Structure formats: C-alpha cells, structure tokens
C-alpha cells in the first residue's frame, strides 16, 4: 500500500524490538466478544479506478447555472486562492498549539479576525465556527449566557435551516424561541419584542433577500434590555451595505463561504463570529492574539484558552474544538485579494445584476413579493404554470429560483431568485429567454 512506508524487513525489526512474533499480539487486550467476524468488505481501488469512479459520481451531478442563493452563493474564486491555500504547510498542519511552528496559520487567522471585524464594524472576531448556522446557534447561547433570560426572539425571515439548528441546540436546555413577524415591505416587525428575551436575532439581508433596518432592530432590542444579534448568509453584501456594528449590533455572525470558497453542495463553509469587546471572555471558539516572543519579536498565539473545552471541560463556554480554519484562510485570502475597492465593485455588480434579472422577470410576468430594498436576492410570485416550466428550464441547464413553498407555506407559488457577479448579462438574457 503506497501510503505505508514500512518494508517487511522494517516490520520484522520493529516486532523484534517490541518483543512480539505477530502483530496480532498487540491486539490481545480486545476480548473475543468485541471482535469482528469478517474482514472489511470494501475492495481497494487503484488510483486509476478511484478517479474513474469519482468522475462518474461527479458527472451524475448537474450543477448548471443556478439562480439560487438561499445560503449558498455562486461567486468567482480567483485562481491564486485555491493555489495558495492548497500549500501543504497550510493544509496538512494541525490546530496551532505550538506557536513556533505555526506562525503562518496564526498570523493568517489574526488577519482573518482583523478583516472580518473591520468588515462588520465589530471589536472582536473569533478564528471561525463550523458554518453560519452553528455560528448563529452559538450566538444565541452566548446571548443567554450574557443576559440570563432563557428566551430569544427570532425574526421569521432568518434562514429556516439556521432556525432549525438553533432549535436543535436549544432543545435539551429548554431554551425558547419566539418568532417576530414580517411587515408588508418584507422587513421584520419589531413592535412585538418583549422584555423577557436575551436577544433579538435578525438576518440581513433576510431569507427573502430584503435588507433589514438594523438600527430599528438595535433600538427595539436595547429598549427591552436584550442584545441584538445580526446574522447573515451572504457575506458579499457587506461590501456594499452599511456594516451592522455601526448600527448597534452586539453580536454579528454568519456564513463566509462567499469569500473564496466553492459551493461544494453546501459545505464546508466558514462560520463567522464577531462581537463587542465586553463579551470577549464568553466568546465561543478559538481566538488568536498578538504578543511578543522572548526576543521581543511580534508573534501570535492562541489566547483566552480558559474559555475552551480542553481547559474548562464541562464549564467551557462551548464544546467547539475543530473549526473551519482552512476555510477562514481562504476567506482571508479573498478579502485581501478583493480589498477595499475590489469588494465594493464586486458587491455593486451583484446588486446591478440582481436588479437587471428582476426587471427581466417582471417583464415575463413575475411580481415582486415585497418592495423592500434588496442586495442580490429577491422573492417573486410566479405566473401561473411556472411550476411546470421550472422542470423544463432545468433541462436547459438553468436552476430557475428556489420554490419557497417548500420553506414558507404561506408563500406557495413564490420563488427566491439570486444573481451575482458571475451571472453576466449574456447568461441572464439566455435564462430570461427560457423563462419567457
């Protein structure tokens, strides 16, 4: 086997050193009643056979041109980014517990923390969570740790899957969620926020694409003594929109997959978690801090480990250990690549393409569900018969929006569309021709 380097001679010498005749002696502590009866029934493949098998699996997927976002967005990945993050010094290293041989990872994550905090207008960002959904669940738990009220208010227009993940994390603790309704323009209605919640949780742009009034959310939350948690599924939006930190958010979390990562059927992504400095000691996940070494050189280490599971055990603020470090590296590379002007220009182009697509769909008989402002996603009521057409359009290689009836039963017959910088005018025009 090519991944095993020991020769028969090596094995013989090692067994002799260990004092055994047969390797199976090393397994003597496994009692008979725990042993498997048969060998593992998987035939090994050669590298050639393996790639044939996987190419077949890959070919059985039909990615097409998807006019869907809903938590996973199609964006261009600059060529140098996968090239750089695939360097094996980054990819084949462990969590940076030994700083002298991990300064590459540590500085890169410190830069990731800095750029995400700056992008979102927040004081502190951590080294990443699994994905946007678990980042939201951890944010909700943290808000409850801070405010000590076992309930949070969630906008109805948070991503439904994210809400389900919050429910999963909450269920055994008995923590509750209450739902905030929607105004006619597609924004969240904060008038029903009560004073028994630890947090008001709102996604912006929300699940139906509408940009929320974060200032109003902050006021509603703070008036009731709650924290404002802003969630997002589309990090690209912050290239254009006013950041949530400047509008009063206490915790901002979301999905960073739009920055330098492919869709990959939804994962891995990179959970972004940021908050105000006041809460740093109850922040979940790893933090990289700057310090100096014994010779006075700037260096980076993992810090505030006393919050974490390997030190604090059952009193830890979270059980997270492995995070999404390599994806955070990719996201940092993307932010460094796009930079101040590039991210603004790409984000603007997302909006422009979405506006162009929306106008085209309106011509084809679609009607917007809301008139609230949007970034690159918007919900439309489809003309009669579109359900049937959806399938036909798919055969032409286009995924024509997301059927909202599957997620929000009261919006049956409506579809959620998305266009990004990769949906150029040519592509949109070709798609609209099929829709018409």
């Amino acid at each position, binding site marked *: 086997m090519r991944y095993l380097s020991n020769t028969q001679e090596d094995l013989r010498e090692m067994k002799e050193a260990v004092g055994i005749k047969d390797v199976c002696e090393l397994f003597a502590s496994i009692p008979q009643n725990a042993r498997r009866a048969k060998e593992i029934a998987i035939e090994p493949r050669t590298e050639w056979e393996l790639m044939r*098998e996987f190419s077949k699996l890959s070919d059985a997927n039909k990615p*097409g041109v998807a006019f869907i976002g809903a*938590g*996973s967005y199609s964006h261009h990945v600059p060529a140098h980014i996968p090239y750089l993050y695939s360097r*094996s010094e980054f990819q084949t290293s462990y969590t940076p517990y030994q700083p002298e041989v991990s300064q590459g990872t540590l500085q890169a994550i410190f830069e990731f923390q800095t750029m995400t905090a700056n992008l979102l207008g927040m004081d502190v960002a951590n080294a990443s969570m699994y*994905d946007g959904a678990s980042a939201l669940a951890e944010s909700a738990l943290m808000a409850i740790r801070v405010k000590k009220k076992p309930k949070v208010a969630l906008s109805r227009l948070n991503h439904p899957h994210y809400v389900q993940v919050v*429910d999963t994390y909450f269920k055994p603790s008995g923590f509750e969620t209450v739902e905030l309704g929607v105004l006619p323009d597609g924004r969240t209605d904060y008038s029903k926020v009560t004073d028994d919640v630890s947090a008001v949780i709102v996604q912006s742009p929300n699940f139906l694409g509408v940009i929320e009034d974060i200032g109003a959310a902050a006021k509603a939350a703070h008036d009731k003594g709650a924290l404002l948690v802003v969630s997002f599924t589309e990090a690209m939006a912050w290239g254009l929109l006013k950041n949530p930190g400047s509008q009063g958010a206490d915790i901002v979390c979301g999905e960073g997959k739009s920055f330098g990562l492919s*869709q990959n059927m939804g994962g891995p992504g990179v959970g972004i978690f940021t908050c105000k400095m006041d809460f740093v000691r109850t922040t979940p996940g790893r933090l990289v801090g700057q310090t100096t070494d014994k010779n006075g050189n700037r260096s980076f280490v993992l810090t505030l480990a006393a919050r974490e599971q390997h030190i604090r055990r059952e009193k830890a603020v979270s059980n997270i250990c492995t995070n999404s470090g390599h994806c955070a590296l990719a996201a940092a590379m993307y932010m460094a690549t796009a930079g101040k002007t590039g991210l603004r220009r790409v984000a603007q182009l997302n909006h422009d393409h979405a506006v162009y697509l929306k106008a085209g769909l309106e011509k084809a008989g679609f009607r917007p569900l809301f008139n609230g402002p949007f970034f690159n996603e918007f919900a439309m009521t489809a003309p009669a018969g579109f359900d049937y057409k959806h399938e036909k359009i798919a055969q032409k290689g286009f995924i024509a929006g997301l059927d909202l009836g599957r997620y929000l039963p009261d919006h049956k017959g409506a579809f959620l569309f998305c266009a990004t910088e990769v949906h150029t005018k040519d592509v949109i025009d070709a798609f609209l021709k099929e829709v018409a």
Partner: protein
Amino acid sequence: MSENKYPGTSGLAFKEALLWERSRAGRLAISVPEQDVPKSDLDPNLVGDAPDLPELSEVDVVRHYTRLSTWNYGVDTGTYPLGSCTMKYNPKVNEQAAALPGFTELHPLAPESSIQGALKLMYELERDLLEITGMHAASLQPSAGAQGELTGILMIHAYHAHKGKQRHKIIMPSTAHGTNPASAALCGYKPVPVELSKDGIVTPDAIRAIMDDDTAGIMITNPNTLGIFESHIAEIAQIIHEQGGLVYGDGANMNALMGYVDIEKTGIDVMHLNMHKTFSTPHGGGGPGAGPVVARDILEPFLPIPRVKKDGDRYTLVSDAPLSIGRLHAFYGNFAILVRALAYTRTLGKGLKDVTEQAVLNANYIKASLKDVYNLPFPQPSMHECIFNDGIQHRSGVTTMDIAKRLIDLGYHPPTVYFPLVVDGAIMIEPTETESKDDLDGFIDAMKTIAEEVKANPEGVKNSPHNTTISRPDEVQAARKLILKGQKA
C-alpha cells in the same frame, strides 16, 4: 548541541508584514468583470463606506501567503506525532477527487435530480462507515468531532425524553476526550467521574457502583486517551443497558480498531468518527473536519435530518422523522470533506486493517524504544499511542514543554503535551501508520538526544527552540493585554 544528523536545521527565513502594512492605495488583486448592465444605486442610507480592507496586488497576496506558509509545519513537512490527533498522511488523490467540478460547483438546494451523484456519494460513505464499524445507521451531517459528540448526546437525550423520563447525569471517565464534558454540558447532563483501575481502564465494578436510573449513560473513549483498550467495554455496556442507560463511544481513536473490533458488539449505541483523523482528510490548521455518527438500530429514529435514502436507483433526502434531534448544519455537513473520506475508504478498503496494525505497531515501537529514557506512567499494553511524561527530566528542572520545544529544533513536531490530564506533564505520542521506521528512528534518536542534553546542558533545552523564526511567545501577556485585531501601521 548535536543537531547535524536531524532534519531540523536553520535556513533563510523571510520576514513578512501584516496585510495592511503592505497595503498601498490603488492596488487591486481581483479581476473585476466589466459593467455589462446599468449601475443601480441602492438607497444611500443603506450604503456604508467602502469596507476597511487592505489594497494589494495579486503578487503581494501570493508572496504574503507563500511566506506565511513557510513558517508552518505540516504532515507533508515531517513527522507530526500529536497524540489524540492522528496526523497521518493526507493522500493527494483525495484532493483531486474533491476538486471535480460536479462536486465543487453544486448548489445544495438544486433539485434532487441534479444532485444524484452527491447523494449517492453520501449514501456510499455511510455504507462504508457502517461496514467498518459494524453499526446500523449513520449521519454524515456533524461538522467535526465535537459536533458529532453533541449529536450523539442529543440522540441519547432525545431517547430518554421519548421514553418519558429525562435523566440528569452522565458517566465520564477522566480518560475521555477533552470535548466530551463540554458536549454533555450542552445537554444539561452533569458529568460523573469514575474511578480507573490501576491499569488505567474502567471496570465493571466501578460502573456498577455509580450507575443508576438518573444516569443517562456513559461517554467512553476507546482506546482511551491513555491509548489503552477498555477491555471490559461489553460488560460495562451491559450494566449501563440494564439500568436503561445508553453508551456513547468517542470514535476519535478508530484508527486503532479497524478490521479488529465490531463496535456494535462492544455494546456502544452511538459513536462519532473523525474524518480528519482516521479517514485521512487534512486538518487544515484547525479544520474543517467532519464528524459523522454511526448508531445502533434503536437510535436510528433520532439521527439528524435530512437523511439520505436509496429508492431503487434514485437517491432522496428525507426529513420526515418525528423523533429526529433535528438539523445541525445549514445544509448536509462538510460535503467536500466527505468526498475525501470516501476516496480514502475506497483506496484502502480491506487494507484498513493493515493501517490499524501498523499504527499500533509504530506506537509500540516508540514505546519500547523510549521506555528506558522517559518515564512511562502506564506501562500496560497500549495501542495506537503511548504516553510518557517528564518524571525523569523534571529532576533537572526541564519540563515537558521544554522537551517539546527542543524537538522542534531537531525537526520534529512535538507530541501532544499536558494531555490527558490524568498524567502529570504528559507527552502523548501518536505516530500513525504512515511514518516509516526510518522516520520513527529519527524521532526516537532525537528524544534520546534531548534526554542526554537534559543531563549535560539543561539550560540549552530550557531556552529552545533556537532555530525558529520566533521562540517562546509570551502567552500570559497575550491574555492580559488582549490584541485580537490589528491596528493600521
């Protein structure tokens, strides 16, 4: 100091600034498409200032990250014997498989007819994991080991709730993985410690003494974090089951068991597996991993949704499962990691047993070779890892951390240190199967050299590492004077 024969040496190292220190107004590293549709202005009240990010050229970005990468040590650089972490070689064909466009470009909410290959891949990986463990049903959704643990404990919690009486405690040996207590706490279970035998394992008597009808079950790592197989596991499980409890198995150490152990026969009810340990997916400097769970039939109804089902030649996602604990990930887990894991199980196949045998032999070879030089607190037979400590060297004022730092100079990544907590000053070594005897001999020799240096020149060891770009960063200062975000130069 005798360094010439070791791989570690010093070479030309580059300084590298922080990104924003390199920034120059007007530089741009991204290719921006032309404005092919009219520009459409959002309400100015919604628009912020341009984001506070550096401005760099593509060359700047490439040099920056290339230089940073040279400050890292990876498995591809050399021996990485981190105990409990299974830092085995990450095969390159796995990367090629994961980069196929039918996977990378796939939207998770595309119609089911468009994602048949992905669903089939997930279904087949589930089958492989069940074949390897002997268990009944699987979910690939958890994103990492700790989330897999949480999944397992949530399933146990849901099981007890369904039975009509929730329990409040869970048995937790001190030899369990570090994340176990924190995962149990998320479910409100109070960890109950259990006394270990002098051999470092849990005994049926100890379990009998504490198991009761308010205890949800046990979280047990096997082999445990001392590298020792819990040989009473089946009997322990029986005691737990008789009192209506369930057994959670932490499968992080599955690398020691493949081809030998039938997990279902050991009495374990639910277990997670780390794709980024046993199944060779790269650790990426901290993640992402994947932590699928495998379960016995009685727990299948509680697995996370959605589940992948096969119906004739079609694969579907099923969410209709009223007893399910719910969803743990925005979509289906870390799919691209799962692709790599399947590439691994399909490359090794029944040869996974050889993987286990050589992993265990390698660890025992190190143990036999160093036992006269370093203190071995638990000399009992152990499996894929072995744990020494600084019991001998401490007399010269040299600690486990000093030994770890000196290893870096000699070109080896240090073992896991100060874990497990049951051993003072633990040096936890897990070589994995992919290290050759030559590599192991180099590591053993380096450990012996350090033991000699401790006698002859303890200060040299205490001041190490000497060959790295930085040495002994001040962690106390980092925690007291928090700098978590860079300032502009």
